[in-house]
């Protein structure tokens, strides 16, 4: 019962970060700032939501696999974001400035 309540709280917390990332993707002005919203908010939000699913599931073999999934996502998602940002920088995409140009 306590773990179910904690899992619900973790799902809500994860949704807060996912929603912040979605708003950032819609509203921010250029690729690098949007990547900033994507990389951190989405990693933390999805990891928190998976931890919530683990608490709802209980102590089984499936929840151990989900814990591996959390570890892999929190390693792989920043790496993919970094690869995208580096590739965009190397092909000459200029960052956004406030006064045009």
């Amino acid at each position, binding site marked *: 019962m306590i773990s*179910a309540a904690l899992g*619900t709280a973790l*799902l809500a917390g*994860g*949704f807060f970060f*996912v*929603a912040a*990332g*979605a*708003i950032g*993707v*819609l509203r921010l002005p250029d*690729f690098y700032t*949007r*990547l900033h919203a*994507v990389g951190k908010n*989405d*990693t933390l939000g*999805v990891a928190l*939501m*998976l931890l*919530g*699913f683990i608490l*709802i*599931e209980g102590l089984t073999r*499936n929840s151990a*696999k*989900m814990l*591996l*999934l959390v570890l*892999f*996502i929190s390693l*792989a*998602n920043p*790496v*993919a*974001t970094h*690869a*995208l940002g*580096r*590739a*965009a920088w*190397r*092909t000459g*995409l200029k960052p956004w400035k406030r006064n045009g140009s």
Partner: protein
Amino acid sequence: MSTVVILAAGAVATAMLASLYRVLRGPTVWDRLSGLALIGTKTVVLLLAFGTVTGTIDAFVDITLAYTLIAYIGAIALAKYFELKEGHEA
């Protein structure tokens, strides 16, 4: 309990629509790629929610593990491809 999981899945699906807008409308190819990576990450939560609600979590955990690996390798490969390609506009 399953009501909470269904609500979370609906919220994640709504956030995926924002990423889909960025995939369809993004001014550069990098915006489209980052939107694809976002959708790939959120699909993990959606699959696990489906497994939890329908009671088939045994199968869906394995599917999710394989899907995460494929989405990660795909994102890296696409970033490398468009980095090495000439004339990457649009």
